[in-house]
């Protein structure tokens, strides 16, 4: 499809806002240039693009970004009780003073800045590589922009069993800040890593994670996206999964003006499995978009997508999830469920579930539902003396729990439950 003048100008504008990095190793420079060229070839996203129909990208592009007041949470931050290696970013900039030393048994950690300045580095086989693969067949211009321009981020080489989870904490300090971070993770065969992410990051946030999960390696990811009301974020995860590997990613989102979370997973080795799940809750001008693309290009792999959105007072939830089963990817087991719970008539849930299957011996299923709180359940609970609001709160948590159950670690799962409960309690719903 020819790129319209508007899309082209938009891409130019994006590249003009972020300065081209200088003084990098030649492999990095070349990856940056190619990414810029990709972005120019596809153009900036517009509402007319097939995967932006439900989510207007304009506010992710305009300059300057709309300000977002910094939200000071009173209660304890997420993952408070979890022993982890903390890496702190302030408005998207790595802050070594607030962070733990980048040392952890089982992994090697560097900053992206260090890595792109190194002439010979394994990261050259990953940086921009998975993002490029993920551009076909669906354009992901903001991820290409990230490859072209992001200078902040963390690069992790997981060589064995990470001694503790690695935790990225995104502090939001300036109302008008715009942040872009890029993380790269390479997991050696049989290695194991838990990655935690939390925080509002910035008024506008562009984050990309590329991760290569080698044979028998296992990746766990739990993130919460900060509660600042007016923040906007476009995130993307690109993962490639080897034989018998495991990938589990869960995202909790409460509040935020606009969040677009893309997740692109490619199975390249047999007998692997992946789970992507999300629980989101928001009200009024909240828009939350999960756009997932899972490609099965190996035998006997299992993928699960479980997305639950609770929407209130005019909020919008979007789910676009696709399972692509390539020829020969026999014994694929693909499951996808997306559900919207509307707490009033003003809210919207828009879903675009897709299956594209080119193998004959597969089991794929998908379902999408959207509805209000079940009146019979509400009556049952209130007839036992629960005030209606509280009964509704319990049912909301119950609805979201199916996504939370996708988290393997019970401590992390309970942390998510507590947070969602607190969100409801602050609104008198629990």
């Amino acid at each position, binding site marked *: 499809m020819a790129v319209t003048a508007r899309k082209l100008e938009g891409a130019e504008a994006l590249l003009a806002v972020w300065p081209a990095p200088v003084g990098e190793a030649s492999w990095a420079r070349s990856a940056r240039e190619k990414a810029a060229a990709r972005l120019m070839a596809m153009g900036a996203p517009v509402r007319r693009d097939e995967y932006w129909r439900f989510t207007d990208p304009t506010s992710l592009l305009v300059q300057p970004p709309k300000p977002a007041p910094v939200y000071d949470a009173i209660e304890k931050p997420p993952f408070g009780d979890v022993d982890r290696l903390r890496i702190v970013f302030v408005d998207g900039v790595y802050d070594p003073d607030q962070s733990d030393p980048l040392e952890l048994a089982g992994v090697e950690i560097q900053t992206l800045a260090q890595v792109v300045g190194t002439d010979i580095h394994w990261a050259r086989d990953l940086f921009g590589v998975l993002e490029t693969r993920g551009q076909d067949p669906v354009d992901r211009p903001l991820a290409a922009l990230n490859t072209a321009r992001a200078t902040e981020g963390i690069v992790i080489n997981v060589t064995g069993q990470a001694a503790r989870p690695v935790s990225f904490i995104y502090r939001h300090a300036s109302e008008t800040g715009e942040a872009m971070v890029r993380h790269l993770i390479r997991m050696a065969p049989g290695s194991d890593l838990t990655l935690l992410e939390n925080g509002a990051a910035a008024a506008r946030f562009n984050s990309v994670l590329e991760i290569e999960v080698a044979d028998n390696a296992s990746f766990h990811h739990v993130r919460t996206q900060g509660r600042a009301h007016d923040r906007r974020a476009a995130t993307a995860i690109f993962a490639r999964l080897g034989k018998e590997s495991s990938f589990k990613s869960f995202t909790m989102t409460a509040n935020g003006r606009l969040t677009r979370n893309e997740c692109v997973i490619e199975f390249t080795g047999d007998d692997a499995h992946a789970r992507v799940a999300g629980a989101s809750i928001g009200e009024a001008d909240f828009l939350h978009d999960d756009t997932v693309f899972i490609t099965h290009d190996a035998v006997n792999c299992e993928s699960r997508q479980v997305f639950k959105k609770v929407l209130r007072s005019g909020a919008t939830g979007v789910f676009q999830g696709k399972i692509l089963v390539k020829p020969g990817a026999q014994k694929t087991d693909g499951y996808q469920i997306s559900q919207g719970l509307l707490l009033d008539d003003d809210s919207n849930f828009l879903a675009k579930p897709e299956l594209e299957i080119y193998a004959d011996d597969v089991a794929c299923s998908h379902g999408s539902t959207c509805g209000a709180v079940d009146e019979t359940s509400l*009556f049952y*609970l*209130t*007839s036992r003396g629960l005030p209606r609001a509280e009964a509704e709160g*319990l049912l909301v*948590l119950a609805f979201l729990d199916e996504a939370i159950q996708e988290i393997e670690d019970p401590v992390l799962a309970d942390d998510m439950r507590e947070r969602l409960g607190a969100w409801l309690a602050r609104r008198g719903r629990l």
Partner: protein
Amino acid sequence: MLKIENLHVKLEEEGKQILKGVSLEVPAGQVHAIMGPNGSGKSTLSYVLAGRDGYEVTEGAASLGDFDLLDHEPEERAAAGLFLAFQYPVEIPGVGNMTFLRTAVNAQRKSRGEPEMNAAEFLKLVRETAKTLNIDAEMLKRPVNVGFSGGEKKRNEILQMAMLQPRMCILDETDSGLDVDAMKLVADGVNGLRAPDRSFLVITHYQRLLDHIRPDVVHIMADGRIVQSGGPELALEVEHNGYADILKSVA
């Protein structure tokens, strides 16, 4: 205790009249039974008393002591001491039975201005009560009624009743689907709760339950009205002859 006067109820959506002037009084400490053919309006009566949406009261009144039932939300009726054991207990995936019970007990206490029960106290009481109803600890951990057998669901209703200590208990076909032993457990549960300041309205199709829970009065409901009331012998008559004779005699 419970006083229902000339209650007329129609379905909000279809406008269909279901209750056509029900009058009934259950004094404190008594057990009354309601029997009646399928579709006569027994469950509707219990739902309307408990405050379910979808019904319109076109005439009549219902009160619990001084408390006007029809004027209040379901949770307020519960806090005032009304309890309905559902004919079809509702499955609520994702809500733990224990969480549900504790939230319910404490919500009622709170609305009555009583202190909340602490976790340890509560746990002890639930375990003890569950044991008497032969409900195992594993069932308490499961989501409310999810995957419970028919009989387990009914026993779970009685567990809730025992925990909430209501003063007016309505049991809608709690005996249906119970095996002989479970019926005995449920009846023991109910009898254990009998007290001078607590009343029961037991909806049933079978005389058998009434062997265990001796009613003071048996009412026969047909086509939205109480058509006959009498002593326990009325239930026996139904058991032997069905409703035909009774309905003929009042027609």
